[in-house]
């Protein structure tokens, strides 16, 4: 019962936060110089004042700012995020069309970084005093320090251009009409490079954190208790050390998961991945307000969602949290 009431209160707060974000974004975007009518008129080569005024009237840009905000909020409440006049499509359709590609990319990167990071960190902790442990930490430091776009370009250069193992860009092979499993494999092949590149930084962070956390947990009294019981070392590592060491990782994983929609702009641009990141970049360049606001909204929604999920997972993982709440 307490659990349900807690979730209810968190949901209510989340809705309020989301509303505040909507309003803030709306005003922020209107602070930028220029509006869609100007950009469209500029592209059409027309400087005719009447033409611009017509455009503004058609898009509702001639109304006062509070009025525009009101229309926008009322729309969002009915899941109507407006119409992108640049793309000639409703914003929601545009976003939903691109969302799967982005979620596939960032989700894969998330799983790769979390899985490999924790395993590498565990190995590094268990071999803390051996060269193999130092090697893992050296690599982690390298990936931690290298800028993402550079890694991305180098990966394309090495694995696509020189070795020719993997496709350099895109979501699937252009012109291929493969379906079913063949298509899935094609997409997976295209996914490997961008997902690994995107996940490298967090993988390095998880590796370092898991190692440090495990080494410090290994010093604690209950580990000695476990040894005094006669437990085998592997069991002590898994059941007693790792479980306790993973608590701080959850916090970080929650942060990373929150960036799933908005965090892949660079990677999507380098690898020409047809996701939300690229859509956002284009919308920004074209002053496509409605589309931009829609994307912002989805980014914020995901951050809030994953924050709540992190809290729930934290409660499941650490029984002491309930008491503190």
């Amino acid at each position: 019962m307490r659990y349900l009431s807690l979730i209810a209160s968190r949901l209510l707060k989340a809705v309020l936060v989301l509303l505040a974000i909507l309003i803030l974004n709306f005003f922020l975007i209107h602070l930028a110089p220029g509006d869609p009518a100007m950009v469209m008129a500029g592209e059409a080569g027309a400087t005719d004042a009447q033409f611009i005024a017509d455009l503004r009237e058609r898009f509702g840009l001639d109304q006062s700012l509070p009025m525009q905000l009101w229309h926008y909020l009322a729309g969002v409440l009915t899941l109507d995020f407006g119409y992108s006049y640049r793309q000639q499509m409703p914003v929601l359709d545009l976003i939903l069309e691109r969302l799967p590609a982005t979620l596939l990319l960032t989700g894969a990167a998330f799983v790769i970084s979390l899985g490999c990071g924790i395993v590498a960190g565990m190995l590094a902790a268990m071999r803390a005093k051996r060269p193999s442990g130092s090697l893992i930490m050296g690599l982690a430091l390298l990936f931690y320090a290298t800028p993402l776009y550079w890694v991305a370009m180098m990966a394309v250069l090495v694995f696509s251009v020189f070795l020719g193992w993997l496709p350099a860009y895109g979501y699937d092979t252009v012109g291929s009409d493969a379906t079913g499993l063949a298509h899935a494999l094609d997409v997976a092949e295209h996914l490997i490079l961008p997902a690994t590149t995107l996940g490298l930084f967090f993988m390095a962070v998880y590796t370092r954190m898991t190692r440090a956390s495990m080494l410090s947990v290994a010093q604690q009294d209950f580990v000695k208790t476990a040894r005094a019981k006669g437990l085998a070392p592997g069991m002590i590592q898994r059941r007693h050390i790792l479980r306790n060491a993973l608590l701080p990782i959850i916090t970080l994983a929650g942060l990373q998961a929150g960036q799933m929609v908005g965090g892949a702009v660079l990677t999507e641009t380098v690898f020409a991945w047809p996701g939300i990141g690229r859509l956002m970049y284009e919308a920004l360049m074209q002053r496509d307000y409605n589309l931009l606001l829609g994307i912002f909204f989805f980014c914020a929604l995901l951050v809030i969602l994953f924050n709540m999920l992190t809290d729930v997972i934290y409660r499941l993982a650490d029984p002491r949290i309930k008491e503190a709440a």
Partner: protein
Amino acid sequence: MSEPLLQIERLTLALPEGADRRYAVEDVSYSLAAGEVLCVVGESGSGKSMTANAVMGLLPPGLRVTQGRALFDGADLLAMDEPTHRALRGRRIGMVFQEPMTALNPLMRVGDQIAEVFEAHGLLTARERREKALALLEEVRLPDPPSALRAYPFELSGGQRQRVMIAMALALEPQLLVADEPTTALDVTTQAQILHLIRDLQKRRGMAVMFITHDFGVVAEIADRVCVMCEGRIVEMGDAREVLASPRHAYTRTLIAAIPGGVAAPARDGADPAPLLTVEGLNKVYRSRGGWWQPRREVVALDEVGFTLGRGETLGIVGESGSGKSTLGRCIVGLETPDSGGIRLAGTDLRTLTGQALREQRRHIQMVFQDPYASLNPRIRVGMAIAQGPIANGVPRARALERARQLLTTVGLDAAAADRFPHEFSGGQRQRIGIARALALDPELIVADEAVSALDVSIQAQVLELLERLKTELSLSLLFITHDLRVAAQICDRLIVMQKGCIVEQGSAERIFQAPSHPYTRELLAAIPGRHDDATAAAAPAAAPRMP
């Protein structure tokens, strides 16, 4: 007398290079027969735990066995390979540790942690393990065993957790139980219960117990034989009653003499009747912040607490953890704000003052904290740590630092200590620095919150002596907060006994020790280990016939 169960022969353990001595233990030999309780006694750093760790195969990294054998039932524990040793751990040798708060995995249910002992040795089915765990929790007399089985460690108190530890150590009915200071971190009444439980289980199962402690009071309660260690060597060994009654070695005599007697000194005259501190109707409730749909949790830390403290008087506040005694101290120093009530220092109500006027008065009350390791900033030199108070109060820097050097000599340290960092000092020395820091503002009242609880008994005696001397020399008043009645008896003129935020009894220390009127006070006094009252006198001979 049968063959000894455990026989340690000429054991020597080398410390890593650069330690303050070469060997953790040197040439140590002792034996332990089945059904016998051997107390290994010594102060911190005496190597008393290291032998036990070597027996368990749990030596910290860096320590090496350089010589000796440890025969357990005929097999040398030190020479056997790790899997063989591991098979003995938990199954034939059980161990209980000092810190019940940290010795259990915080993320695992108590029942699972007990069941794990059987699992480690591949015994029983999951269902049987659970039933055994329940039976064990009943045996160690945990209230409501079925729900304790499902509880997480943080839901249990320190004493309850120690019972769980004991249940775990006894799960496979080991022949030898190693108990490393199992009661040191517990309240005095809980300590008495746990000692009783260990003694009881030991008799019922005929186990051998190696009981490591620093407290001769505990020795008197539980030991058949005693082995006294000093700096890695055994200085005295023998029958517990004989050693307690007529210790042969000088070190043993110091240790026994250092135990506060548990008999209050007669009331001293000369205390000024004019009260320095008056506390009236103090209330403090800790509230956990509730959510929108959650009830708030309230803990009453102080409930209408009132007392007076005369000039030059030492007032002891005694109680167990959770009694509110520390909250009281913190309210008086101004670290906590009480909900209501008055605190008057020499007639001025501190609760009505603010700003400059409050700062002016606060100077007169200073505090000495419990943990000498945590209460000094590791990156600030000792001299500066002492001088910071006066500097904040407007004393020129050079003069404050000069005064810090003087104060260091006053508390029995070298003036040159001012230029060193806290980590270069021992616990006792740090506590002296803490006292010097409290004195730097020329206070009238010093609040000492468990100021000697973290120290070894011999160091404890020295620090108490220092406080006593300073009190007379500088005409200070002392508010001495402690859970240890023996310490309170030694230093306090008057005592206040607190339970659950209330004062249940107050009066002269002598009167309270001789004729306690409240049942809780009587319970506390009865729980003091090794107090020579009728109960222990009757218990000691009962243990005697099983001596070798």
